[in-house]
């Protein structure tokens, strides 16, 4: 199975029309997806979006209602979990508490009748840097160490696909960062296809070379993390992956190669190839760090072709690397802007009349029929509502 460079020849994982229904609810809805061999693939989505169900179907722990799963040309849909060339790193690690680390790691090999496991176990424990812990019990290890045992226990079987179910969820922030790098290193070293399920967008973006954003049982958008981030194709992705400022508008015409959208009596332009709106209803968007805030008196400095919105600063938070501005537009929408702290001093202050501007190249157009709130954390929405009510009360008083 091993090729000369130590990496294994692996094949693509194909999901075709995969559907899983729990009663009436389709947890996974007609999912078709190819995960290239040797890639680090992340399924990103909020809880309940179907990502874990998808993973469990690939692992064989859940039967699909319909559709097929195959690795290369081999259909594994009807194979039971223990017959599949797939291993899982479970969310809670699921290490066997009565076996020591060595036996935990050797478990898969022993079940497949491998007689001499010592060398392989030692090798994989070396890879995850846990050799001195071989004779300890799982409970004697720290969270990060247990996590690495779980990875080693799965990887030693040289699976065609390694599934990781929120593998870093139980670790604290610092350790999680460390393990992200560690996992990426291990993946590069062994060359196995990693399918990683997470709700943490940062985790998905740092590790994966392909991210699929999942929502309500289907994939909203898939691609390289940077591509998805820079050019979201749906409102859900724009809101779920990072933050976006979105303005509901109507397509009003063309200007050369650019689409012109009118929203709130303002015109915004964006390149045709950055617009994914089917009809005339368009949501115009831009990422907060692509926007600049300029005092109204300096507005003449803004390049002619830039999109712009005037407003009033309502909040300034200095965050070290950047400063976060909240700017209230005349139509009472809060725009969020991240300014790099390149220049010392000379920041705008609360109450200043300002102009927010950004390049059309950083603008994207989305289908306007869904509204601008899809994919925003419901808690954030609730908080915003409270804030608005409070602001209204204060204004009255």
């Amino acid at each position: 199975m091993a090729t000369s460079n130590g990496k294994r020849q692996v094949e693509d994982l194909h999901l075709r029309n995969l559907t899983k229904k729990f009663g009436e609810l389709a947890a996974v809805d007609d999912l078709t997806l190819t995960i290239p061999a040797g890639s680090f693939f992340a399924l990103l989505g909020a809880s309940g979006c179907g990502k874990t169900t998808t993973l469990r179907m690939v692992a064989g722990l859940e039967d699909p209602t319909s559709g097929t799963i195959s690795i290369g040309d081999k259909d594994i849909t009807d194979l039971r979990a223990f017959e599949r060339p797939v291993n899982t790193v479970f969310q809670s690690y699921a290490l066997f508490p009565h076996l020591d680390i060595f036996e935990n790691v050797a478990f898969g090999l022993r079940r497949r009748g491998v007689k001499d496991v010592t060398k392989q176990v030692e090798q994989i424990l070396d890879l995850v840097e846990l050799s001195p812990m071989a004779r300890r019990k799982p409970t004697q290890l720290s969270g990060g160490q247990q996590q690495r045992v779980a990875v080693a226990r799965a990887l030693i079987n040289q699976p065609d696909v390694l599934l990781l179910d929120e593998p870093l969820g139980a670790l604290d922030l610092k350790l999680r960062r460390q393990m992200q790098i560690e996992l990426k290193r291990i993946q590069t070293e062994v060359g196995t296809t990693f399918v990683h399920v997470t709700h943490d967008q940062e985790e998905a973006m740092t590790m994966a070379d392909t991210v699929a954003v999942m929502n309500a049982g289907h994939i909203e958008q898939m691609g390289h993390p940077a591509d998805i981030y820079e050019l979201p194709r749906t409102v859900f992705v724009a809101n779920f992956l990072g933050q976006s400022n979105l303005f509901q508008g109507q397509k009003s015409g063309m200007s050369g190669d650019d689409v012109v959208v009118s929203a709130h009596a303002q015109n915004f332009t964006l390149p045709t190839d950055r617009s994914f709106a089917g009809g005339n209803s368009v949501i115009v968007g831009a990422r907060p760090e692509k926007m600049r805030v300029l005092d109204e008196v300096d507005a003449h400095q803004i390049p002619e072709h830039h999109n712009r919105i005037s407003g009033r600063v309502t909040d300034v938070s200095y965050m070290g690397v950047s400063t976060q501005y909240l700017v209230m537009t005349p139509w009472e929408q809060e725009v969020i802007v991240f300014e790099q702290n390149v220049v010392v001093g000379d920041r705008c202050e609360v109450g200043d009349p300002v102009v927010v501007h950004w390049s059309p190249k950083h603008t994207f157009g989305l289908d306007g029929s869904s509204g601008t709130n899809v994919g925003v954390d419901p808690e954030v929405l609730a908080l915003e509502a409270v804030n608005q009510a409070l602001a209204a009360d204060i204004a009255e008083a």
Partner: protein
Amino acid sequence: MAHVVPTAGVSASPSVVAQRRSRTGYVLLLPGMAWLAIFFAIPLVTLFATSLQSPVEGKTGRYQPGFQFSNYSDAIAQYWPQFLRSFLYAGVATVLALVIAYPLAYFIAFKAGRWRSLMLVLVVAPSFASFLLRTYAWKTILADESPITRFLNTLHLLPDGRILNTWIAVVAGLTYNFLPFMILPLYAALEKIDPRLIEAAGDLYASPRKAFWRITWPLSMPGVVAGTLLTFIPAAGDYINAQLLGSAKNRMIGNAIQTNFIEFRDYPTASALSFILMAAILVLVFTYIRRAGTEDLV
């Protein structure tokens, strides 16, 4: 609790507080210790003293303090078959109870879902009726004319043509009566097992059968040990089942003790038998726990 400790010089120093606190612990132990002393330690000493008494010449049922160790050898010489039978019956009943209880406890723990509580209540429910009453009921169930006996007889499965008054009835009664003591600890142990461990075993190429023997069974070991002990110990000392369901050939050591105490008024022999039974069970239990290696689990 750190805030309770007063600053030095204001009132008691921390060491005094600590002392007082540890004294509180002992005070709280008192009721339990008193209970143990009055109802366990003192009777045990009395029992031991009785077991060494010698008969008063010419007066049956009267004994005087002494050190008649021959009471023990005499008791063993006379009652070794009853001892053997007790451990044999209790052993068979324990194994049977384990075989019956394990699948049931497994089902309740992993598959019963919302019926779980109801099933547990059903397991315990028979205990609401008296032990004696239930054993009498078995007399009817296993009687020669009962449907069960007739059915088994048509299959020619019964060597003596009957169940009642044979060892089968005694073992059946013991198994039935102590079954809840097997099911409950097994359930408690199985219920603690994370089902994801079994999924993980499946993910690591273990067939359901292998996953059971490699993961579920070893992890349920504390329950198996507790259940077998809770079944074996009372079953070995029981005399009701042998008396009501068995014949004279099926008498257990509990019957011997009872007869000696109540009928023959031979208190020293009865006491010696009780002591031997206790010692034998202690030895058996310790060997068993050593073998099962429970301290290595969990």
